[in-house]
């Protein structure tokens, strides 16, 4: 029997009992559909992360954190530790090891690093427009996040200038919807010093940001110089010198591609941990991948259930067609070909289920993505929740075919073993 005849006959046989085939295929469709959606979701979000990464262009920035053993920082995870004033100074509010000014100096001496800046959190009071309207500044973005900033208009705040960007949602304070219209406006920022006196500093709006899914761009972002100025004001007003401690520092790396490893090694030697933006996004991607795989796991369970449907359908089919099998064997069909015919029927079910399920998944995924991105989630720039990865689609179809084939082997082996005489016996 030729392969094409086996395939044709198998297809014809699956069409004999249409209701049963339909029901079995539905089970496979559900699995294929779910798997397509979940893997598409992972691919879509990772694609979004990728666009964010590639949007940064040549990122030559690195974040530096104290490299202390993370487990030692967990409360209750270790016994009492002898008190060391020097160490204690560098312990922040949450019991985390912090960077000191000394550390910053050490870092600045590492080769290929420049513009080493401690990351400081500034809590400004208000933002005042030229017209005198004041708005609460609940939070401000860190200048270190500038690399990830998506702009609707203008440019990112220059490091050394007193500049700031505002998010698109703040355009209404100027009563406009055109982001270009607010560029060049001067705003005044108010901040309380340690003596609870409000100090002010002026800044120019140079850009309008879009909120990204990570939250970057959702609030005004000062330039490094502006941020430092504000921090200076925030910590001024008292005669007592405050010991400084920072969660992390950022620095520019000269020729990242060539020096990334040596810089990381040098920092690690000094007891610091360094991460590039890509490293940080890699963590996010890792989490997304993990979630995707968990979801895929559920889809695989659905497929597993569907595979028992295939086994059941084919077993019934083998039972019903005992005589037909006997006849085919009597007429010279080898056991191997009978096995091939029945496992092909399983594969046919798999093909139908996977094509319909994957097709449905892609259609639903793409329309759902389009509806969400242009609807409720339109505020998030460049967001994609679903992407079609051709490789993944091919893999899903192949996986389902393999599962279908495996499910078919048991009934097919049973058919192949049938004794033609038993099968043809008529009493």
């Amino acid at each position: 029997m030729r392969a094409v005849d086996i395939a044709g006959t198998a297809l014809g046989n699956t069409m004999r009992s249409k209701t049963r085939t339909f029901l079995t295929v539905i089970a496979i469709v559900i699995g294929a559909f779910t798997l397509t959606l979940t893997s598409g979701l992972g691919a879509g979000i990772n694609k979004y992360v990728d666009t964010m990464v590639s949007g940064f262009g040549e990122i030559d920035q690195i974040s530096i954190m104290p490299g202390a053993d993370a487990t030692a920082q967990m409360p209750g995870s270790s016994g009492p530790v002898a008190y060391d004033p020097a160490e204690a100074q560098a312990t922040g509010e949450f019991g985390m090891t912090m960077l000191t000014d000394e550390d910053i100096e050490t870092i600045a001496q590492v080769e290929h690093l420049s513009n080493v800046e401690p990351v400081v959190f500034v809590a400004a009071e208000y933002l005042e427009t030229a017209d005198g309207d004041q708005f609460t500044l609940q939070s401000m973005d860190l200048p270190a996040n500038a690399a990830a900033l998506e702009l609707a208009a203008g440019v990112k705040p220059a490091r050394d200038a007193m500049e700031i960007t505002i998010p698109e949602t703040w355009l209404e304070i100027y009563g406009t919807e055109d982001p270009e219209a607010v560029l060049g406006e001067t705003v005044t920022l108010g901040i309380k010093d340690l003596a609870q006196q409000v100090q002010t500093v002026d800044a120019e709006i140079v850009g309008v940001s879009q909120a990204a899914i990570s939250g970057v761009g959702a609030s005004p972002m000062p330039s490094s110089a502006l941020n430092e100025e504000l921090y200076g004001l925030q910590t001024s007003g008292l005669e007592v010198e405050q010991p400084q401690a920072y969660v992390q520092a950022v620095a520019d790396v000269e020729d990242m591609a060539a020096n990334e490893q040596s810089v990381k090694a040098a920092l690690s030697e000094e007891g610091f941990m360094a991460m590039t933006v890509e490293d940080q996004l890699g963590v996010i991607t890792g989490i997304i991948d993990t979630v995707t795989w968990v979801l895929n796991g559920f889809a695989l369970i659905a497929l597993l259930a569907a595979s028992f449907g295939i086994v059941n359908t084919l077993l019934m089919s083998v039972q019903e067609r005992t005589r037909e099998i006997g006849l085919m064997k009597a007429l010279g069909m080898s056991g191997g070909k009978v096995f091939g015919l029945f496992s092909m029927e399983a594969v046919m079910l798999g093909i139908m289920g996977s094509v319909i399920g994957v097709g449905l998944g892609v259609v639903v995924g793409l329309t759902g993505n389009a509806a969400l991105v242009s609807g409720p989630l339109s505020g998030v720039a460049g967001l994609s929740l679903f992407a079609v990865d051709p490789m993944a689609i091919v893999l899903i179809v192949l996986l389902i075919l393999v599962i279908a084939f495996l499910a078919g082997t048991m009934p097919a082996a049973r058919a192949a073993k049938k004794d033609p005489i038993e099968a043809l016996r008529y009493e």
Partner: protein
Amino acid sequence: MSAAVLETENLVKVYGRGESRFDALKGLTFEIRQGESVAIVGKSGSGKSTLMHLLALLDEPTAGVVAMNGRPVSQLKPAQVSELRNDTFGFVFQQFFLNASQTVLENVILPLKIAGVGTAERKRRGMEVLEQLDMADKAGNRATDLSGGQKQRACIARALINEPSVLFADEPTGNLDTATGEVVEDILFGLHRDRGITLVIVTHDDDLAARCQRRLLMQDGMIVADESGEAVRSAGASVGQTSREGSRRVGGHGKHAAPVVVDGPGLDEPGPDGPEAGPTAPGAATAGAAGQVENAGTTGEERA
């Protein structure tokens, strides 16, 4: 005498073991020659079906040898045995085993499909054999839409499509009424006579057995009698027997009257018995006698 197509030596088949041991065949040695028509006769349980299964290579003997064209079959691999069955045997069963979901043509070409013959060739040969059996107009019908006789003719068409040298028929008329059964018998014996196909028929119908050149009478797993030559049956019994359509007949049952198939396009070969047979009227077949049966056998040999 022609060469033996099937031979057996001390053929034994045992089912079960211990208490439930049943000796279905107890050491049979015989041979079936090319072009012979052999009836295996006996009561139920006498072992005749078991014997046919062994001869048809559907089953393996517990002991003893089945040889096909002088070569012991036990030497062959299962795949080769399957191929041999597909290639050289035709099967007609008491029950039709037609696939209800397929057309008559699709049912008929199944052996060719199994053999791996191409689609166009399958269809051509399928139509050819259906025409020979006056079934061409039913080719596109569902197998379930046929009458009993038509179904059995479809089965015969299926058995013939691979141009077998041996045709096994297990109670081929058992499921048919007398008249239809006669038509089917005529077709079988016509094929035997005209094409020299070796015919092995398992039956407990004495009339059918009587039309065979040789009868192996089985009892309790032994061959108790091996009669040959005498066609006991009154040839006149089926005089004027025509197929349902009446216009064409395939292999009218009368001995020398084979060439009654004059208008069948599929069977345009000349009659086997030379000029003296001629397009005789069906009635002339009443002249049938024992010697002529022998004659038909010889014909088969010549053509094989």
